[in-house]
């Protein structure tokens, strides 16, 4: 009898603990999981867009223009009678590709420049960081607009223009990360062992400094997709009839009565950017669990670096200000 009671209490405890663990998991990783799910869903959509789309995205039918959402056209039709849903699915391709290409290439270039600058030091560092500062003294979208307009309209040119303005924040972040790592003992040890500078930089320092870079990369895909959509909205991007979300919003911006033309592509942008932001935020917590634990002192935000403040990435101390 008494044994039964104990047993019952025990299973209760197990269930309770499981529940507690689940809720803790949700609190800690829920946002990241949701973000990851959204991102994966969109990637799948992008891959299978043409087979998922109920209509060919470029199919014009003037008799069916501006139809409201219905069973036939889930998200309605646009000015030329094209199916908004089909165009939206296919539009995922270009947005995701542009966002990822800009961030990966920009991130690599920036990290390389910043990392090498920090490790090399001296005159080389001075020059590289001045160049970074120079690009950073232009508000990104204005400079990107100027370059995109100058290069001519087209996806490749828009991506190129974005790359020109994209690398500096990675350069700054990578530099500050490497500067912190460089003074660590293990670097000195590697030095003593007689390893060469490139081996120390890429095999020892970079792996240790990579965390905040990953966070910035993930958060940044969202920003890049937003910027790309913005440039497309302004008419600097894809050439019609290629569907792109920003351009779809632009096509529907006068159509207040036919709200579906602009609303759904905008929701698509919002959802994919939210996905990347949740994911990046979650990765940040995961890499730096201390930052959200109750009672822990958050790390200082550095005051001069334009990269860590916007996304408030935990930085190992203030990054070295450019003047000083």
């Amino acid at each position, binding site marked *: 009898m008494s044994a039964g009671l104990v047993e019952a209490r025990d299973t209760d405890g197990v269930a309770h603990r499981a529940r507690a663990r689940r809720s803790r998991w949700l609190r800690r990783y829920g946002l990241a999981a949701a973000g990851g799910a959204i991102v994966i869903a969109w990637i799948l959509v992008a891959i299978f867009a043409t087979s998922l789309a109920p209509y060919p995205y470029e199919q014009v039918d003037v008799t069916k223009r501006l139809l409201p959402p219905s069973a036939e056209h889930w998200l309605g039709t646009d000015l030329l009678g094209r199916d908004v849903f089909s165009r939206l699915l296919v539009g995922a391709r270009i947005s995701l590709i542009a966002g990822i290409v800009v961030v990966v290439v920009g991130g690599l270039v920036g990290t390389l420049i910043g990392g090498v600058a920090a490790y090399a030091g001296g005159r080389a560092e001075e020059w590289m960081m001045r160049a970074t*500062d120079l690009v950073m003294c232009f508000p990104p979208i204005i400079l990107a607009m100027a370059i995109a307009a100058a290069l001519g309209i087209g996806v490749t040119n828009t991506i190129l223009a974005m790359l020109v303005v994209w690398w500096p924040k990675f350069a700054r972040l990578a530099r500050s990360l490497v500067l912190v790592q460089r003074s660590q003992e293990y670097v000195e040890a590697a030095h003593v062992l007689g390893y060469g500078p490139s081996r120390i930089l890429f095999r020892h320092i970079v792996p240790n400094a990579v965390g905040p870079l990953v966070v910035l990369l993930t958060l940044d895909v969202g920003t890049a997709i937003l910027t790309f959509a913005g440039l497309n909205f302004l008419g600097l991007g894809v050439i019609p009839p290629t569907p792109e979300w920003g351009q779809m919003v632009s096509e529907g911006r006068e159509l207040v009565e036919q709200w579906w033309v602009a609303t759904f592509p*905008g929701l698509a942008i919002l959802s994919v*950017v939210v996905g990347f932001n949740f994911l990046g935020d979650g990765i940040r917590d995961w890499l730096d669990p201390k930052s959200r634990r109750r009672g822990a002192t958050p790390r200082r935000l550095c005051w001069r670096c334009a990269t860590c403040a916007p996304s408030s990435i935990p930085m190992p101390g203030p990054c070295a200000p450019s003047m000083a």
Partner: protein
Amino acid sequence: MFRYLTLRLASMAVMIVLSTLVVFLIATQVPADPVLAQLGDLQSADKELVASYRRKWGLDLPIWQQYLLYLQGLTRGDLGESISTHRPVLEDIRQYAPATIELATIAFLLSLVVSIPLGVIAAVKRDTPIDHVARLVSLIGVSAPTFWLAFIMLAVFYGGLQIAPGPGRLDVTALPPPKWSGLLLLDSAIVGQWDTLRDAAAHLVLPSIVLAASIVGLLTRTVRASMLEALAQDYVRVARAKGMRETAIVVRHALPNALVPVVTLGGIAYAILLTGAVMTETIFSWPGLGRYTFRSAIALDFPGIMGITLVVAVVYLVINLIVDLSYALIDPRVVQR
């Protein structure tokens, strides 16, 4: 302090000269031909005409001479003549700037009013549902495309509910105030045109909400983070030990210290507001710099877009300098480093 200031000013001067070089190189070393873009297909066939335009804009000179000419013009405040409006770019900028300044100022104030309380509450109620909701809201706010938000606002409040005025700064029936500062709120208040003032204010509501939304998320997160840091300081513990009320601790002790890092966001907020302004103004037909930039870019009006880019970069540098200096004033520890 003095040495710091001289260094900063010198480096800023160098940056400004270098940024003119960047702007100039983009304008001249690109495949697009502004003359052909401006003349259109029919006139471009006329070689004489094209050549005469090239001469007129100095496009036939060697590149370094063009740059020197450009610099020479800059020292006189001459940013060139806009190809599409046929007016000096500086004059254009002067005409369009007030609309943007008015909009951006209101939006900035609005975002402060929203994000400071939100950030403080999120920090004080850390890890409670309120904090999570604030985090969620700011993440979603950062993720919403400005141009889309502008469309939604117009569709709902102007098209649907019809409680907000449409695009533009004033109704067509409204009497514009005499132009003094170009800021409609100020100008109409000075001469006492209260109807115009009300109309201008009503037209500001939607665009400034849209513009503010682009920085609320960033500001809220920064306020929250720096508030958390402030609350963990010793002086807060001392104040608690003294038996001070929690509200007084938060508002009188922690908040002033927590707002210091927020000052530094000035430069970043400026850049974001300007980006947002390009989108917002395009949708709201706001006759400001954002729309001017957009139109110049589309028309390949290089003097126009280069002039804007340069002015914006210089203002950006100046704002960053002011931010850094004010930071040094607020927090003396910065200079000692």
